[in-house]
């Protein structure tokens, strides 16, 4: 019986098969969910992946321009925007929101730790060519018009476009 010698650590082999595209379905609109969405989107782009973020439902509200206050046509949509203010500088935490004190503390901590804010990450994502696509159906449903949303987004689209883009790639639902 032969005793095998301890093997040398393996040389780095061929690059493992990786997805060359990533699609994130941004369903949530809270600060603590849209933040990791944008961190992953910019990182995906930095890794050379064709990256798409498809914003739907609550995920649309962070795309509302910060200066736009009330959106919607009818009283229900207007009420929705009153209760759920849009804009990436008015996001709430999904827990420990404390009527806005939580996000303010989070912003303070982020500055202290040199963590880029969602607003800065959104600009970075645009600059890096991340495809930011709002969902047409939920825009109509929630009363958000194209002019309510920030610049630099791609044309609103539907689920088919989102799934077609996602095909063969990495997909995340946040």
């Amino acid at each position, binding site marked *: 019986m032969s005793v095998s010698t301890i093997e040398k650590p393996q040389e780095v082999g061929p690059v493992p098969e990786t997805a060359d595209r990533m699609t994130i379905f941004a369903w949530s609109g809270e600060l603590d969910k849209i933040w990791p969405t944008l961190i992953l989107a910019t*990182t995906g782009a*930095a890794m*050379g992946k064709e990256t798409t973020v498809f914003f739907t439902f609550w995920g649309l509200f962070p795309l509302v321009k910060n200066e736009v206050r009330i959106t919607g046509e009818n009283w229900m949509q207007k009420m929705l925007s009153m209760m759920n203010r849009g804009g990436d500088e008015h996001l709430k935490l999904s827990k420990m929101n404390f009527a806005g004190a939580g996000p303010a503390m989070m912003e303070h901590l982020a500055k202290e730790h*040199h963590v*880029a804010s969602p607003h800065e990450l959104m600009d970075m994502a645009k600059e890096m060519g991340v495809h930011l696509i709002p969902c047409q159906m939920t825009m109509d449903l929630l009363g958000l018009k194209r002019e309510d949303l920030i610049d630099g987004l791609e044309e609103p689209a539907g689920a088919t476009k989102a799934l077609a883009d996602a095909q063969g790639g990495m997909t995340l639902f946040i």
Partner: protein
Amino acid sequence: MSITIAMSLDLKGLSCPLPIVKTAKAMKGLAPGQLLEVFATDPGSVPDFKAWSMATGNPLVESGQDGGVFHFVLKKKEF
């Protein structure tokens, strides 16, 4: 033989994902085979730079630490 560094990035103090995002951006401006040197203080950048190099195929030719500062040298991949 001395190694010629084409570009040096000081990313000390920055947190995830900025060190990788800024490195990827800088790498775009380099020619194949050129070296990029990066200084960072985020401890998460150690596994991140290794993973980024593996995922993108740009070899990580050197990585080290001096006190709290991490140092990486990446080579732009040849096509």
